[in-house]
C-alpha cells in the first residue's frame, strides 16, 4: 500500500508549477469554463466513442504502435500491454464466464427448446436455443451500447450537414448505461470508503432515500432562486442529510461500540417508513399519488443533450467524487488515518489516532456519498420523489465495492459494468422476451467469479496470483471483540 512516488515533472508541468498562484488559478478557471462550455460536445464524443468502441480500440492500438516504434518496438509494446492488462485478465474472464452461464440459462429455459428435444428434433432444438441466445445478447448489447452501424450512419449524416438529432438518438444506449451507473458509483464509493475503515455500511439504501428526500425538498421549497445557488444548495443539503443519517450509526459505534451492521440495517427501515409516511402524507402533492411536487427548474441537474439522451451532470459529479475519494484516501493524512484504522484499529490507537473519531468521520462521509446517489437521481432523472423510488442500489453497491476491491477506480469500473447490464435489460426484455432476472443472474455470477478469483484461475489454469494481488477486503470487525 505504499503511495507511488510523485511523477517527475517535465516541460509543461514544471512551467505551470512555477507560475504564481493567481496565474495558476486563472489557468484552472479558464480550463474549467472551457470544459463546461464544450461539455455538450465532449459528452457526445464520449458517447460515440463508447458506441464505436472497436474503432476506438483500433485507434488506440495504432497510437500505441507508433509510440512503441520509438521506444523499442514490439517487445516494448508487449511488455507495456501485459503490465497494464494483467490486472484485467481475471475480471474480463469473470464477465465472460458469467455471460456464458447466463447464456446457458437463456438457451435452456425456453419451453420450445424442450418441446423440440422431446420430439427428437435435436438440430431444431439447438437452432432455437442458439437463436434465443443470439437474439438476447444482441438486444442486451444494443440496449447497452447502441447499434454501431446506426451510430456510424448517423455520424456520417451529421458530418454531412444534417441536424444532430439522429446522432443523439443513436447513442441512447451508451447514455443509458452511463446514467444507470451514476447511483452505483456514488453508492459503491460510499460502501468502499466504509470498508477501507473497517466498517460495513449496509445502510446505503436508507441513506440514498434520505439524501433524495432532502434534495427534492430543497428543490421544490424555493422558487425564484438562481440556479447557481439553488442547485449547489440542494446537492449539499442532500449530501449532508445522508451523512447525518449515517452518522447516527457512526456515533453509536464510536460511543457505545454498537455494531454498525445492525444499526445501519435498522436505520434503513426507519428511513423507508419515514419516507413512506412523508410521501403519502405531508409531502404528497396530488391526492392519491404518494408523490411530491416537482422541483423547480433551477434545481435541475442539467442534461447535456436532448431527449432521448438523459445523461446529466450527475455523471460528472460522480467521476469527480471518485477522483476526490481516491485523493482523500491515498493522499491525505485523514485518509491515511482511516485506512490505518481499517487495517488495524489497535495499532492505530497505539499510534495516537482516535479510532472513535475516525469511525464517525468515515460513516459521515460514507453517508454523504450515498446521499449523493439519491441527489443525482432526484435532481437529474426524476425531478421529484415518489413511492417506489428505491431500486436496490444500496444493496448492489456492497457487491460493487467488493468487485472494485474498495478502490475508487475499481468501483467506477464495476459501476459502469453494472450500468451497462441494467441498461441493456429493458431492450432484452422487449425485443427478445428474456426476463430481466437473467441480467441479475449475470450480475451475481460476475460478483461470484471476481470475488473468488481462484475459480477462474482453476478453469483457465492461470498462474498463481502474486502476493500483492491477494488483497483481502476487511469486512467487519468487532463481532464479540
Amino acid at each position: 500500500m505504499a503511495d507511488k512516488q510523485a511523477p517527475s515533472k517535465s516541460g509543461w508541468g514544471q512551467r505551470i508549477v512555477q507560475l504564481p498562484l493567481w496565474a495558476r488559478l486563472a489557468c484552472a478557471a479558464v480550463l474549467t469554463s472551457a470544459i463546461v462550455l464544450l461539455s455538450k460536445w465532449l459528452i457526445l464524443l464520449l458517447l460515440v466513442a463508447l458506441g464505436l468502441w472497436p474503432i476506438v480500440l483500433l485507434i488506440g492500438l495504432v497510437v500505441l504502435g507508433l509510440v512503441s516504434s520509438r521506444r523499442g518496438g514490439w517487445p516494448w509494446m508487449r511488455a507495456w500491454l501485459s503490465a497494464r492488462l494483467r490486472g484485467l485478465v481475471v475480471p474480463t474472464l469473470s464477465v465472460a464466464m458469467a455471460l456464458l452461464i447466463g447464456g446457458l440459462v437463456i438457451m435452456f429455459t425456453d419451453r420450445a427448446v424442450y418441446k423440440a428435444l422431446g420430439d427428437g428434433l435435436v438440430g431444431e432444438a439447438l437452432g432455437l436455443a442458439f437463436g434465443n441466445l443470439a437474439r438476447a445478447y444482441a438486444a442486451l448489447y444494443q440496449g447497452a451500447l447502441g447499434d454501431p452501424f446506426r451510430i456510424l450512419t448517423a455520424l456520417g449524416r451529421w458530418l454531412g450537414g444534417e441536424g444532430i438529432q439522429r446522432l443523439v438518438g443513436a447513442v441512447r444506449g451508451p447514455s443509458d448505461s452511463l446514467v444507470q451507473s451514476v447511483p452505483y458509483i456514488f453508492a459503491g464509493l460510499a460502501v468502499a470508503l466504509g470498508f477501507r475503515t473497517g466498517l460495513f455500511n449496509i445502510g446505503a439504501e436508507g441513506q440514498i432515500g434520505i439524501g433524495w428526500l432532502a434534495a427534492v425538498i430543497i428543490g421544490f421549497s424555493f422558487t425564484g432562486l438562481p440556479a447557481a445557488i439553488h442547485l449547489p444548495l440542494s446537492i449539499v443539503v442532500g449530501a449532508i442529510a445522508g451523512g447525518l443519517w449515517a452518522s447516527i450509526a457512526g456515533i453509536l459505534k464510536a460511543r457505545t461500540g454498537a455494531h454498525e451492521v445492525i444499526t445501519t440495517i435498522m436505520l434503513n427501515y426507519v428511513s423507508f417508513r419515514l419516507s413512506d409516511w412523508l410521501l403519502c402524507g405531508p409531502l404528497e402533492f396530488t391526492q392519491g399519488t404518494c408523490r411530491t411536487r416537482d422541483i423547480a427548474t433551477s434545481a435541475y441537474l442539467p442534461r447535456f443533450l436532448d431527449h432521448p439522451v438523459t445523461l446529466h451532470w450527475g455523471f460528472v459529479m460522480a467521476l469527480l467524487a471518485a477522483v476526490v475519494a481516491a485523493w482523500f484516501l491515498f493522499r491525505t493524512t485523514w485518509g491515511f488515518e482511516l485506512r490505518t484504522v481499517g487495517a488495524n484499529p489497535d495499532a492505530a490507537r497505539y499510534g495516537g489516532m482516535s479510532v472513535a473519531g475516525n469511525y464517525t468521520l468515515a460513516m459521515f462521509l460514507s453517508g454523504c456519498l450515498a446521499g449523493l446517489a439519491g441527489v443525482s437521481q432526484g435532481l437529474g432523472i426524476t425531478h421529484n420523489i415518489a413511492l417506489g423510488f428505491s431500486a436496490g442500489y444500496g444493496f448492489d453497491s456492497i457487491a460493487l465495492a467488493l468487485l472494485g476491491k474498495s478502490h475508487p477506480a475499481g468501483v467506477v469500473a464495476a459501476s459502469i459494468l453494472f450500468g451497462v447490464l441494467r441498461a441493456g435489460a429493458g431492450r432484452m426484455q422487449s425485443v427478445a422476451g428474456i426476463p430481466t432476472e437473467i441480467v441479475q443472474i449475470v450480475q451475481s455470477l460476475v460478483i461470484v467469479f471476481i470475488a473468488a478469483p481462484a475459480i477462474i484461475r482453476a478453469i483457465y489454469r492461470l498462474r498463481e496470483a502474486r502476493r500483492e494481488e491477494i488483497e483481502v477486503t476487511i469486512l467487519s470487525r468487532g463481532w464479540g471483540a
Partner: protein
Amino acid sequence: MRKNVCFVMVTVILLSTLLTACGPSLPEGCEKGDVKVGMVSDVGGVDDASFNQNTWDGLARADEELNACAKFIESQAQADYEKNITEFAEQDYDLIITVGFLLGDATAKMAEQYPDVKFGIVDFAYDPPIDNVQGIVFNTDEAAFPIGYLAAAWADMQDPGDPQVGYVAGMDIPPVTIFIVGYQSGVDYYNQQKGKNVQVKGVYVGDFEAPDEGKTQGNSLIDEGVDVIFGVGGKTGNGGLTAAKERGKWGIGVDVDQYNTLPNEKDILISSCLKRLDNAVYAVVEATTKDEFGGGGVYVGTLANGGVGMAPFHDFEDQIPDDIKADLEAIQQGIIDGTIDTGW
C-alpha cells in the same frame, strides 16, 4: 483442453452477439403490418397474480387474435418509467400501454415527446385530456355494489343474530376507495330491501404488500364479529383472506377471479369483484387496429361493457339461494339502466 473449450465458447458468444447486433430487427414473433403494442408495467412484474398480470393477459390475447404484436418491459424502479417508455417509442411501437397511476407523470411527459405514438394508461385519466393518450378507468363501484349485497346476504344467512361484513384494504387512494364505497352502498341496499341491519367494518392498512398486517387486521375484524372479508388491496388484502380462511369465515376476492389465483383460500371465496383489465386493454388494442383509437378520451370499464363484473360463485353455487341470485341479476341490470345509484 478445458481452457480451450471455454475460450472457444466465449468467443462464439461474443462473435454471435456482435454479428447479430447489427441491423434493425423486428421483435420476435412480430410480422410486418402488425400493430406493435408495448406494455410498461409498474414495479411488481407481470407475474404479480393480479394487476399487471391481468393486463398482460389481455394483451397476449390481443396478440393471438388480432393482427397485433405485444411485448412488455417490467420497471424495476420509479426512475425507469420514462426510460422504458422511451425504449418502446424509439423502437417505433404504435401503442404503448402503461399500467398504474404511478406512471401518470412519465406517460404525460413521453406523450408530449412522441406525439405520433399512441398511449393508453391504466387507472388514470388526464384533465385536461392529452390528444394521444387514452385513459383507462374502471367503475368498479358498479361491481362492488352487488358484491356488497351478496356479502350482506351471506352474512345474514350464516349469522342472522349479528351479521357483519368487513374489508381489508390497501392504500387510501381513489382506485381503492371506489371499491369500498360501492361495497358499502350494496350493503345499505340489502338492509333497505330486507329490513335488516348488516354492519360494515373495515380498515386501510396503507400498503399493498403487507400480507401479515392484512392478516392481523383480518383477525381483529373477525374478533369483532365480521363474517365476510372483502380483500381489496393486493397482497395485503390476500392476508385478510388468509385470516378468514383460518378462522372459518368467508371471503371475497378482488381484481381477478382469485378462486384461480389463491389455491389456499379458494374454498372460502364466495365471489370476486372483477376489474377486467384484460378486456379493457384488448378493447383499446382492437380499436387501434381498426384505426379508431380513442386518443384524448377515456375508456371506462363498466358493468355494461364487461369492464367490471362479478366472478362466478364456484363452490358456493348451490348454497346461494335462487332469490338472492335473482336479486343480484336485477341489481346489475338496474345499475346498467341507471335506476340504481352506487353512491360513488
